[in-house]
């Protein structure tokens, strides 16, 4: 068996007195689509932030493709091929959609101020290349009509899609998605699910996804990790996780939810 692509080993993170994460471990094999679920405030986003370098964990290690990332800055982690989207929109709101996506590609530009200022030789060539590449992403995610719009002026669901496009422009090995479908309409959700499946199964990108919509999770993911109050309380296939009494207890707010989903899956 080969080593997993991403290995998170007993992370701990706290804010003031609150323990956002305690002893959280996660192992993501190459090519997997791993989901993280849990009630609000469980620490899901915090875990993603630790992986992408936004937060520094108090304890624990993060290994990725044979490298120890624990001490690296976010931009250095990006250079290793980790890309992500955000739960709350984080687009470059004054820039056009195409510029937003081009920035996602930044780590493969290594720009030179002088060449860029003169728009000469390699600089010009790289820009044309980059546009060709970005157009492929625009085609894939069906963003053609939005290309020249200012990102901040678009509808919520569209902005979420552009975040995905920007993350893809990096050509990541690992893609972290923080609630990619939150706030979307049903059709938008279906499209998003389609893209995620394509990216994982066809394009072969390893994905770690946080999502609240249990139906989506159950349909897309074979491997689920459940967080509650900063701790991993369960791990396994959708059916295993749903059957877990501790998981059912942590979702007390909606006791019928798992039954109805289980019924749906049985049919």
């Amino acid at each position: 068996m080969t080593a997993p692509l991403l290995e998170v080993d007993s992370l701990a993170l706290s804010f003031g007195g609150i323990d956002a994460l305690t002893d959280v471990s996660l192992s993501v094999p190459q090519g997997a689509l791993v989901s993280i679920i849990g009630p609000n405030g469980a620490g899901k986003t915090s875990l993603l932030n630790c992986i992408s370098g936004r937060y520094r964990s108090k304890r624990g290690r993060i290994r990725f493709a044979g490298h120890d990332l624990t001490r690296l800055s976010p931009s250095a982690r990006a250079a290793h091929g980790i890309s992500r989207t955000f739960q709350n929109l984080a687009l470059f709101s004054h820039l056009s959609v195409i510029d937003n996506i081009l920035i996602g590609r930044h780590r493969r530009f290594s720009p030179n101020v002088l060449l860029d200022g003169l728009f000469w030789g390699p600089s010009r060539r790289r820009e044309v290349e980059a546009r060709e590449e970005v157009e492929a992403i625009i085609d894939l995610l069906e963003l053609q009509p939005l290309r020249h719009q200012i990102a901040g002026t678009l509808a919520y669901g569209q902005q979420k899609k552009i975040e995905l496009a920007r993350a893809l422009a990096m050509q990541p090995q690992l893609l972290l998605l923080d609630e990619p479908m939150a706030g979307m309409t049903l059709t938008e959700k279906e499209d998003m699910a389609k893209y995620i499946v394509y990216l994982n199964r066809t394009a072969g990108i390893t994905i770690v996804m946080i999502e609240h919509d249990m139906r989506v999770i159950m349909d897309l993911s074979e491997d689920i990790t459940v967080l509650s109050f900063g701790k991993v309380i369960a791990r396994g296939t959708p059916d295993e996780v749903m059957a877990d009494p501790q998981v059912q207890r942590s979702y007390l707010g909606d006791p019928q939810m798992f039954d109805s989903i289980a019924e749906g899956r049985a049919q």
Partner: protein
Amino acid sequence: MSSGEFIVRHEQALRLFPTKWGRVRIAVAVALVLAFPIFANSYQLGLANLIFINIVAVLGLNVITGFTGQISIGHGAFLGVGAYASAYLVSVVGVPFLLAVPAAGLVAAVVGSFFGIPSVRLKGLYLAIATLAAQFILEFVFKGWTSVTGGTSGMSAGAPHIFGYEIHGDLPFYWILLAAAALALLFVRNLTRTATGRALMAVRDHDLAAEIMGISLFRTKVLAFAIGSFLAGVAGALWGHYVGYVTPEQFGLGLSISLLVMVIVGGLGSVLGSVLGAIFVTLIPEALTTGATMLVPDASRLTDMLAFLREGLFGALIIVTLIVEPAGLAARWERIKMYWSLYPFAR
């Protein structure tokens, strides 16, 4: 106006002026600027020269404040660094003018990057204070480092020569300053359509997301200060040689503030705005003086009063402009263009 044109190739989209009408407008502007010395008297040439210098300086400040979102209240002092450096290189060391000016830009870039380092940790008001400190420290050096700068009485900028010919007077400087402004415009415009400029704007719009996309905040912010103060240094160097001397008063807080006014009135993060802002802030006070002298018969007896009125009116005009068009003159221009491209359907 620009409708009905289709962009079908990437090279086309990446053009400096992607639409035909854009190119026509630029051609007209270039023709006017080239023909200007034929009609203009020496006073008008002098004003044009000041505008060119201001355009270079304002572009620099726009790179720092408009494109990267890092406020700087020390920009005037960065011009001073360039002015002193170039004056020293030409008049004391004997470096040729055409080498001394970019070298002075580099000196200012080094000094500016150093004072830009706090921007990595400080934001908003705190960064404003830090750059204000840079202004005062540099002014102190201009006044105190007498052996190099000549102290409060300043120094001669030396006679600039190009290929053995001495450059002197408004007309030769018109061409030199025009070339400098054109190069600076081209440079900054090119940055905005390439990866370097996108990184600057990404840091402005969302620094955390930019970092996650692989953009180093430290490198990018310091780079912004380096580019911006390079342009400031070049502007200062040219100004020094143009007026012939360099004194600390030229590069005080007042200059920094008026450069900020040009950037904001013209439009933050807009290349065209830098031009409009530089023209507006340079010309309006002159227009007010001219207007006043035409209205008041015996102006010479009222000089103090007029100066006071002029400053007051100028301030009021800036406030009105900002209320009417908070996004700057460039935004208004975009709206006018939009109106005509949709005419007669626009409202």
